[in-house]
């Protein structure tokens, strides 16, 4: 696959900048969250947003759909939601004197599926998303139906400590590229929201990127150069999440899967392109490591009792694993960083 030229990189980068600006105009004070969501989209990943109600999760997803000119559908997950309600059901129809089952596509058949409060549905319904998220197709009564391209699931969930929630199964969590935590806004941002928003009125957002442009950027991400040393860093980072492979992993019961390593590489490439580079770097990996790893590790009982969080342990792993496997002689010591990029 040919490497993108500098001009192509610049064009793609300009498009991404427009998208980021548009989304930051909808969601105030969440620049880092917006950047990570766009990174996830460009890396062809599904994103799980976690946060308390009212922080703008749904607003962000809806704004993204508008800005990208993508088909979007929203599924409000409830405890009584059935798998067929999201995948679609065969309906008995009469045509030409014959009765036959005709598949009626569910709300999954869209480009951008907003699975709102996904952890309020039963595990059975949650699991109905597995094939759609991984294979990008749906199988009903033995018949497989491909989903439209591109297809993303942007799910939101309330913290699992809240009433009436079901924790997502690990297999499904692993299929989300990022798990992003939406934090509350500070006072200045709240003031900005109050001044520019009105209750019940959705903010207007014009499309800033066509579907073709998005597809082109996603294809370009695949061609971003991943240096061997960066790939080695990703491998050592994921390996270090397994018990016995690092000091921080003493708090981990089960580490991240190879899918996590692939997700990390893909996200790093997307971030490289967003930075206007034709290659990924250590810094890209470090920037997306915690969102990629935190929901893929299962903490030990003692660590959970001790109040450790997945993100905290992922950060410890990140701090422990050096970017280069080579050791430094003890006759040398690190000085202050010479320069930052």
């Amino acid at each position, binding site marked *: 696959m040919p490497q993108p030229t500098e001009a192509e990189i610049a064009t793609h980068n300009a498009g991404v900048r427009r998208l980021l600006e548009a989304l930051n105009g909808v969601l105030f004070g969440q620049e880092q969250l917006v950047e990570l969501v766009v990174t996830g989209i460009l890396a062809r990943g599904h994103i799980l947003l976690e946060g308390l109600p009212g922080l703008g999760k749904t607003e962000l997803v809806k704004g993204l759909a508008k800005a990208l000119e993508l088909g979007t559908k929203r599924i409000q997950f409830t405890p009584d939601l059935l798998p067929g309600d999201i995948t679609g059901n065969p309906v008995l129809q009469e045509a030409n004197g014959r009765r036959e089952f005709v598949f009626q596509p569910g709300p999954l058949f869209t480009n951008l599926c907003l699975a709102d409060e996904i952890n309020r549905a039963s595990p059975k319904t949650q699991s109905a998303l597995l094939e759609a998220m991984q294979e990008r197709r749906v199988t009903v009564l033995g018949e497989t139906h491909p989903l439209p391209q591109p297809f993303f699931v942007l799910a939101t969930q309330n913290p699992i400590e809240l009433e009436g929630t079901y924790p997502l199964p690990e297999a499904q969590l692993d299929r989300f590229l990022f798990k992003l935590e939406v934090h509350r806004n500070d006072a200045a941002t709240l003031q900005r929201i109050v001044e520019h928003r009105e209750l019940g009125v959705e903010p207007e957002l014009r499309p800033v990127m066509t579907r073709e442009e998005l597809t082109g950027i996603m294809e370009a991400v695949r061609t971003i150069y991943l240096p061997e040393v960066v790939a080695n860093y990703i491998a050592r980072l994921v390996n270090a999440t397994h018990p016995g492979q690092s000091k921080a992993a003493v708090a981990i019961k089960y580490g991240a899967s190879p899918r996590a390593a692939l997700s990390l590489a893909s996200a790093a490439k997307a971030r490289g392109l967003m930075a206007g580079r034709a290659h990924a770097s250590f810094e890209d990996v470090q920037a997306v490591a915690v969102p990629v790893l935190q929901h893929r590790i299962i903490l030990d009982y003692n660590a959970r009792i001790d109040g450790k969080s997945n993100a905290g342990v992922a950060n410890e792993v990140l701090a422990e694993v050096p970017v280069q496997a080579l050791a430094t002689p003890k*006759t040398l*010591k690190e*000085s202050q960083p010479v320069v930052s990029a």
Partner: protein
Amino acid sequence: MSRTPPPRHRVWSRLIARTRRRVNLGWWLEWLAPVSLLFGVAGACAVLYVRSAGWFEATPPVIRWTGIACGAVVALVMGMTWWLARRRFVTSEQAMVRLEARMRLDNALTAASRGLGEWPPVPEEATRGDGWVWNWPRLIGPPVVSAVLVALPFFLPIRPVEGVVARPNEPMAWQEMEKWLEDLREEKIADPEKLEELAKQIEALRENPPEQWFSHSNLEATDSLRESLERSLSELERNTAEAGTALSAMARFGNELSPEGAERIAGEFAEALQGLELGTLPMDKETLEALGKLGPEGLKKMDPATARELARKLGENREALKRMLGQCDKPGGGEGEGEGVLSEKEILRMLGEVPGEGPGAGGVNRGRGDAPMFHEDQESNLGTKNLERTVNDDLRRAAPGDVVGISQTEHEIDKTPTAVRPGGAIDSAGKGGGRVWEADLLPDEKAVLNRFYK
């Protein structure tokens, strides 16, 4: 047309080479540090040994050769550690990655080296350093300690141990004989010339190499000399005693003796005098001359006081000789009047003019000479009433029925309560609740639960 590499490329290449050199040098020094300490200790020991052996002072070329050897060892150590450290050396590519990671360049150098994009601009800070500094305490500590260790023995006041080499112990017989000769010389008992001759014989034995002092031939010669000297001393003592006895008898009973007795004493005196003069260890010339002037005839006419004085002198000599030979526990232990002077009874007994007393008392007309265990004031003690403890440490030879040991012990008694128990009582401690807390949980788990329920 030659193509000039872009300036940035050249600058980065130089910086990468600098990082590579620094890291590799760091590895080498890290290997060198413990080895230098090791060789420092070994070098210090070597210098201490060489100095204590006096080689520096004795043979100046040793210094030159030692210097050459030290230089060779240092070169060898440096080469060896370089070879060992090579496994950790980094390549230019690894040094480049290290540099770009440290400088947060987003792997721009790696990408540029692959032809992806331009080489990034060189920040001014990068020319001043690459993010690492030397860890000086770790770097210079071991070599300095090593150098101090090697230098310190040069400043210590060390005397070569050659002059203080302990001589091996010489045979005890030499010292014993020398003590005899010294006593004889001090007491003026024997002829000094003969004593000197004997001393030379001992010295001749001593002049042999120390490793031969205890050889079979040397020890045989020593024993022979010692036995000869001991015999000479015994002979001298016997002759001195005989002469002294004769003089004592004349001093005490000179006027009362019968002519035959006086003649007999004079004869014995003459015999003793001859022995003292011609024996293997002649008497001191001065004393011998005085006795020789007296002669057997003079002895009969001798003044008792002079005779007593001469007898006393000979008695002292005899006691000294007996001390040397270990025959007398304490000086003057006899029954006589003074030191070594024979008693009246002894002289008369010797002359046969006093009958013996009691069984086996000696003398010409001595008694029956009864064997031991005869009824006396104190019965013979044959040690038959001593109680002795017998110990049989060799149990292989113990006979059946022998008591091999006694110990104290208790019977094993089943102390399980056997009283009546109420119905429904159980022995099992159960499997949950408090038992799990006490018996099953590890301390870490207990700590976790304590924290949780606090």
